[in-house]
């Protein structure tokens, strides 16, 4: 199969789908489902089948549209049109179905009382590459993905490019790992590719564990084929024939949609043996996590796939050399793989033209905390924090003042008002004492108590420490105790000094990233809000 054949296939699918000018999209991602999206979908579908719609229209369940706090969300748009090009409705209930269906008639007015302006900055200021299909395609439909141009990059790679060509494009794109570390993806791929031929593995890290981060869940729930396509391209590039997706068991909907996607892709010959009638074989299996944050660390993740306790081991040797069952292994996270297909289709140079000097492309962020527009956004690297929080996020509710934004989860830190004009990329966040992490952004208003925030994250690290190495196991426990004492105003200046020393020791000596970064929330709150600690000392 070549690109022309794939285009023919997409055309056939379009013809099969029948004639309709409008589609009514209902977000069926986890957040909207929790707000009652399923009854809305059922009511709209029933209404459409009964002919309540004024024009030929189709009701379709889709993935995340982003503005989770306004769910259930419904959009009325032309088939495959971008979200902003349609009419978006918020807080929809089943009772609204007739009105929405009636509004699809030619010349009919939108239902104003439900309308969410699609030109509001939340939608208008985003740049969607990873989330291109989210909220538009039906995540359970293989055909839908193909009709939206899916699998073209894989077919192009398999039929028109060598493995080295693919790696060159990824390297040229400047893409860096979206899981937190920001390691250059092209370099990682070429390292694994250079290992002697033999059994190699591709792993997708979907163990998104940072509290306050739900980017990967949304991608998997909205566009699972995009991730599979990225993994298949990676496998082709490095010479692997087997892949694993390690997903949190806390994401049942994502798991279900991934399973469906794998099954359908296999049945259609886009996964498995002789993919698209080429010599390339690639099989994907899902492995479920079982509630251990540390399994996001790559060596712990592999230990877990191997059926053991998810405990990290010293690196080197790195997974690229000695990975799953001792074989060379490529591990990237969900968002990284989701970037691959557009890079292959549109070229590394195109991607490298987006973002900042050292951080290319876009980044998906999960906005949460005390912010008006809670949800999922994708913006160019280098967007200012202020624009993200105040323009796109709509600022702080209830007239309160902004205090800090926490990025990077338990490994990150808090950024205060004074640094909000910093363009967001891997390096700028590092200079602020925090990190990109996987993309969670928790906004805190003036009522937040920063010692308590540090204590919260330390408790998280203490609970999630695997217990293997001494500094992380015993050090986080002691640091948590000291933070509790400070929070209760029972601590002395010597306690604060001991806390700072333990931060240094745990950071410098811990075995894996969890321990090495566990002191970050303390160090960062000490850096910007030291007076809040000192006020509590005896």
């Amino acid at each position, binding site marked *: 199969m070549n690109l022309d054949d794939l285009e023919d296939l997409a055309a056939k699918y379009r013809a099969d789908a029948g004639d309709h000018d409008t589609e009514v999209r209902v977000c069926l991602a986890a957040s909207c489902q929790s707000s009652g999206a399923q009854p809305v979908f059922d009511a709209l579908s029933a209404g459409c089948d009964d002919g309540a719609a004024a024009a030929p229209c189709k009701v379709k369940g889709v993935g995340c549209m982003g503005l989770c706090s306004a769910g259930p969300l419904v959009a009325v748009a032309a088939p495959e049109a971008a979200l902003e090009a349609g009419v978006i409705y918020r807080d929809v209930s089943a009772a609204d179905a007739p009105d929405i269906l009636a509004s699809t008639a030619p010349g009919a007015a939108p239902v104003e009382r439900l309308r969410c302006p699609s030109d509001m900055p939340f939608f208008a200021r985003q740049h969607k590459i990873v989330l291109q299909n989210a909220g538009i395609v039906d995540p359970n439909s293989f055909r839908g993905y193909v009709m939206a141009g899916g699998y073209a990059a894989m077919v192009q790679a398999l039929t028109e490019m060598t493995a080295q060509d693919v790696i060159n494009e990824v390297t040229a794109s400047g893409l860096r790992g979206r899981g937190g570390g920001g390691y250059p993806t092209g370099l990682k791929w070429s390292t694994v590719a250079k290992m002697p031929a033999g059994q190699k593995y591709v792993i997708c890290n979907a163990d998104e564990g940072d509290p306050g981060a739900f980017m990967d869940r949304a991608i998997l729930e909205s566009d699972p084929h995009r991730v599979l396509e990225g993994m298949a391209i990676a496998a082709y590039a490095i010479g692997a024939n087997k892949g694993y997706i390690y997903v949190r068991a806390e994401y049942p909907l994502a798991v279900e949609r991934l399973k469906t996607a794998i099954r359908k892709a296999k049945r259609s010959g886009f996964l498995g043996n002789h993919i698209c009638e080429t010599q390339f074989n690639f099989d994907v299996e899902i492995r479920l996590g079982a509630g251990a944050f540390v399994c996001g660390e790559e060596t712990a993740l592999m230990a877990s796939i191997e059926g053991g306790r998810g405990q990290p081991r*010293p690196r080197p040797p790195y997974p690229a050399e000695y990975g799953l069952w001792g074989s060379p292994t490529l591990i990237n996270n969900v968002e990284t793989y989701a970037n691959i297909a557009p890079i292959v289709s549109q070229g590394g140079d195109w991607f490298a033209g987006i973002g900042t000097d050292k951080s290319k492309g876009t980044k998906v962020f999960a906005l949460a905390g005390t912010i008006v527009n809670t949800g999922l956004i994708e913006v160019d690297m280098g967007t200012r924090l202020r624009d993200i929080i105040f323009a796109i996020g709509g600022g702080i509710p209830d007239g309160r003042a902004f205090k800090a934004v926490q990025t990077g989860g338990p490994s990150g830190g808090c950024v205060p008002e004074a640094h909000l004009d910093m363009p967001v990329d891997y390096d700028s966040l590092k200079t602020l004492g925090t990190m990109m992490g996987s993309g969670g952004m928790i906004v805190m208003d003036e009522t937040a108590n920063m010692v308590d925030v540090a204590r919260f994250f330390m408790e998280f690290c*203490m609970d*999630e*420490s695997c217990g*293997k190495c001494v*500094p992380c196991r*015993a050090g986080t426990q002691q640091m948590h105790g000291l933070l509790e004492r400070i929070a209760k105003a029972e601590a002395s200046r010597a306690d604060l000094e001991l806390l700072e*020393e333990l931060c240094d020791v745990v950071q410098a*000596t811990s075995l894996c990233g969890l321990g090495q970064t566990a002191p970050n929330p303390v160090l960062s709150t000490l850096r910007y809000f030291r007076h809040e600690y000192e006020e509590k000392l005896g």
Partner: protein
Amino acid sequence: MPIRAQQPDVSVVTLTIDGQDLSARADETIIEVCRENKIPIPSLCWMDGLSVVGACRLCVVEVDGGPRLQAACATRVREGMSVQTNTDKLQRYRRTLVELLFAERNHVCAVCVSNGHCELQWLAQTCGVDHVRMPYRNTGYNVDSSHEMFRIDHNRCVLCTRCVRVCDEIEGAHTWDVMGRGSGCQVVTDLAKPWGESDSCTSCGKCVQVCPTGALVKQGTSVGEMVKDQQFLSILARRRSSR
């Protein structure tokens, strides 16, 4: 990391440790070279003959002046490598790590059967730990005396997992493993039943001999009487790997 390097590499590299020019086999780790050359690096989880876990972090060293410390047990030597094993910073870190271990469980040396023969006690002295600055955790742990020959006192366990590894890698019984996570970790036999009820335990006593503290001891020993003999390990490990 596997016990031995994947492929034995007999080529020779030269490196400097604390300014001393040394040569070593390319498949050796820094700690092995230090031990051969009588350069003292504290360690607790590492043991010649067992696989490397890099868990106690006491053997961290500075390599080539880089900011990231490396565990000497888990880092192979390289040509031209420059290692510092005993800087002020490293001494400070080690002291704190030893303090953390003492604060974590109830190591009351004065009434321990291993008093005077304990690696943790010795580490405290060599690292200059004359008191523990952090509060003691004061969590009580079980003492399991159900085995007819041996006893485990979890109050004195440092979770080095030497017992787990020797039981699995040398004896082949895999009676021991670690349960729980974080501060809740404990070594267990089988399904965390009393040791004496274990079906898999062969009562070989290797776990007792490799235990660095008074956690695993022989029954019937009194204060200071438990002296451990670890000679067997390197011999067994060597003979096993040459099969």
